[in-house]
């Protein structure tokens, strides 16, 4: 049912934009892309411009929103489960800070270089590298012997985040003209998404969610506490490593194309948990789909909300998500705990 809702959301949002394109045209354009069906669809009424707008501008952007939303929400579920902490979100281990710093440095020192890597822009590659490097730094900083205590990891994450933010500020102050671009990127958005970005990021998110799904039962037991999970036969250290690595790869990947979009990785898992309960076997896939739908709508709003200029999508996620979350939280009779 949620998947149907997701498809509906995609089509519905394709309709949102300044060039008015009818639903029938959208369906015709989409139908043409599906093998076996294209012969039976009459697309004569659809103009080439509209087709380009739908396929090259709106569709990649919407799909990117779906992928990023799903990735952030799924990573949020994993982090919250692994850390048994409701404050954990997908940027906890420094992925956002690392990516931002990478982007900033590139913008200042290498912005004019038209380097590409596997067809991807240098910004994406550096942001991804920055995110992953930061997460590894945090992880190995917290390592004591061959164990990584959860509290140490949380603290290291927070401290490294703050440290990188400080470094980031120093560079921002010296960035001059590039500053506007940096600020806009950090606020998050899907302005210049191409199909290439989607091809690059989708495998990370899909593979990550599938890998994580293998470990959802272990996540349920981790919720009982480390010792209990171990006594129930969970190799806690290994499961934690796998899930942290997976979640970090997802986050790194999505951050590299969307910038830092807050709120989704923190609140979507909570919202979903409030409605469907704590069982990760359901929570993980549901959160991913809810995250996707949520971000598609938020991005569509961001595109059209204030006329010609776009709002950063992070603003929309927070503005629309918070009231709904508070409503869910208040509706519950019993207290909510992670």
């Amino acid at each position: 049912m949620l998947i149907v809702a997701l498809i509906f959301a995609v089509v519905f949002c394709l309709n949102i934009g300044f060039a008015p394109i009818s639903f029938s045209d959208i369906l015709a354009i989409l139908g043409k892309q599906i093998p076996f069906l294209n012969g039976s669809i009459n697309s004569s009424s659809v103009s080439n411009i509209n087709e380009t707008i739908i396929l090259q501008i709106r569709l990649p952007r919407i799909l990117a929103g779906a992928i990023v939303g799903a990735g952030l929400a799924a990573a949020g579920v994993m982090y919250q489960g692994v850390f048994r902490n409701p404050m954990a979100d997908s940027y906890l281990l420094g992925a956002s800070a690392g990516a931002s710093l990478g982007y900033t440095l590139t913008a200042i020192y290498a912005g004019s270089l038209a380097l590409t890597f596997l067809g991807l822009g240098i910004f994406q590659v550096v942001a991804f590298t920055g995110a992953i490097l930061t997460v590894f730094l945090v992880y190995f900083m917290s390592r004591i012997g061959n164990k990584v205590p959860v509290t140490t990891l949380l603290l290291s994450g927070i401290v490294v985040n703050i440290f990188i933010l400080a470094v980031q500020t120093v560079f921002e102050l010296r960035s001059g003209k590039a500053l506007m671009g940096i600020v806009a990127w950090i606020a998050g958005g899907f302005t210049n998404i191409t199909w290439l970005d989607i091809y690059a990021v989708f495998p990370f998110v899909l593979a990550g969610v599938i890998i994580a799904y293998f470990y959802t039962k272990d996540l349920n037991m981790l919720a009982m506490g480390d010792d209990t999970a171990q006594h129930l036969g969970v190799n806690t250290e290994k499961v934690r490593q796998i899930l942290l690595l997976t979640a970090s790869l997802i986050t790194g990947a999505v951050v590299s194309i969307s910038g830092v979009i807050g709120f989704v990785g923190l609140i979507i898992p909570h919202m979903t948990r409030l409605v469907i309960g704590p069982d990760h076997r359901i929570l993980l896939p549901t959160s991913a789909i809810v995250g996707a739908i949520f971000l598609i709508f938020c991005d569509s709003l961001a595109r059209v909300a204030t006329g010609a200029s776009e709002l950063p999508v992070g603003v929309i996620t927070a503005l629309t998500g918070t009231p709904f979350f508070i409503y869910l939280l208040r509706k519950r009779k019993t207290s909510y705990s992670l």
Partner: protein
Amino acid sequence: MVLLRVDGVECRYGSVKILEGVNLSVKEGDFVGILGPNGSGKTTLLKSISRTLKPHKGTILLDKTDIYSMKSVDLAKHMAIVPQESNIGFSFSALDIVLMGRNPHMKRFQMESEKDMAVVKKAMLRTNTWHLADRPINELSGGEKQRVVIARALAQEPRVLLLDEPLTHLDMINQLEIMDLVKLLCVKEGLIVLAVIHDLNLAARYCNSALLLKGSRVFAAGTLDEVLTSENIKTVFKVDAIVRRSIVTNSLFVIPLSPQKPSSPRNCAIHIVCGAGTGTLVMKALADEGYEVTAGVLNILDTDYETAELLNIPTVNEAPFSPITEQTKRANLEMISKAAIVVITSVPFGYGNLSNLEAALWAVKQGIKTYIVDEVPIEGRDFTGGKATALIAELRKHGAISINHPSELPTLVNATHDRMELCKHNQTEIPGHMKNTEPITKPLDSREPS
């Protein structure tokens, strides 16, 4: 056949030794109580056996396999743990929680089979939690939650069950039900149980052997009769306790007396006429106040005799179930003559111990302050055809004071003691108050030679 073997285990937190030199071998059907005061290493031992805290030295073998070389999932098929407190934050249903116990028996993507469901249902029925199956765990009461956790442990179908203070949150009926169930599994299905238990009486009732820890070492190990003695309890817990065998449950039971107060010695002797357990509280209370308590005549094997032994109270004693002989009576008078105060408890009087009352009468005639505890009126405990009643009446006539309950004694005695102190300092001002002071003042004088 020995199944679980702990060999020379030593555990440390940092450089601090928490446990050292622990050996233990357990076979099928054993119910081992791990006893000891706080900080003696009980939980640490359980942690090292449950593979949570790797020992610094020594090995823990299950079926001759070192548990630290096993995968956690393999160990979980054989061993289940009920922790001290289960902090379950997420609102899983009770059924979800118990189903987690099947995890070690399932493959990663396998769904619960009918067999798994059957095992889970059985475990929940046994722990009386089946009716809670759909309730969220964080809305259950402490006792219900703990029973769900025990059901989860049973769902693992373990051969070894470790319980870490499992009954902390349970009321009496829950405690007994759970322990009865665990004991049944022990006896019928050969389950091995290792339980950290603070309540010595529960341990005595259900365990068939025990390990008593003191200061990170094993102080005593063996059957409960060997381990649970009042000497051991006194040394390890620093609490005087009476250990008896219950006729009803045929298990030992422990009556802890309050820990000895380090009150300053008063250098004042009090003799107690008691027997049949009527003197136990009185002896303890007055000894705690710092008096030099003596008692007699007591028959050996009498409850009060055992209490006196335990509290290191000097007694004049007589062979078991024998009447008091002239010789013993004289020894008793000797002892009474050194006392400043005499207390007669509500002990029943027969011809065997009637001479204790005669001795008390002698004391009161000597001017020794005498208290009679009249908890039960003398008529109800006089088995001498009125002779004891007559003696009590005469005691009263000579100034013995009746009180209703032994709990009034310490205050009264303290007041008397203080007054005597005062008299001793102002002897000239109240002449004649202590006419026959010879036996009384002697011990008092010896305290202050001036």
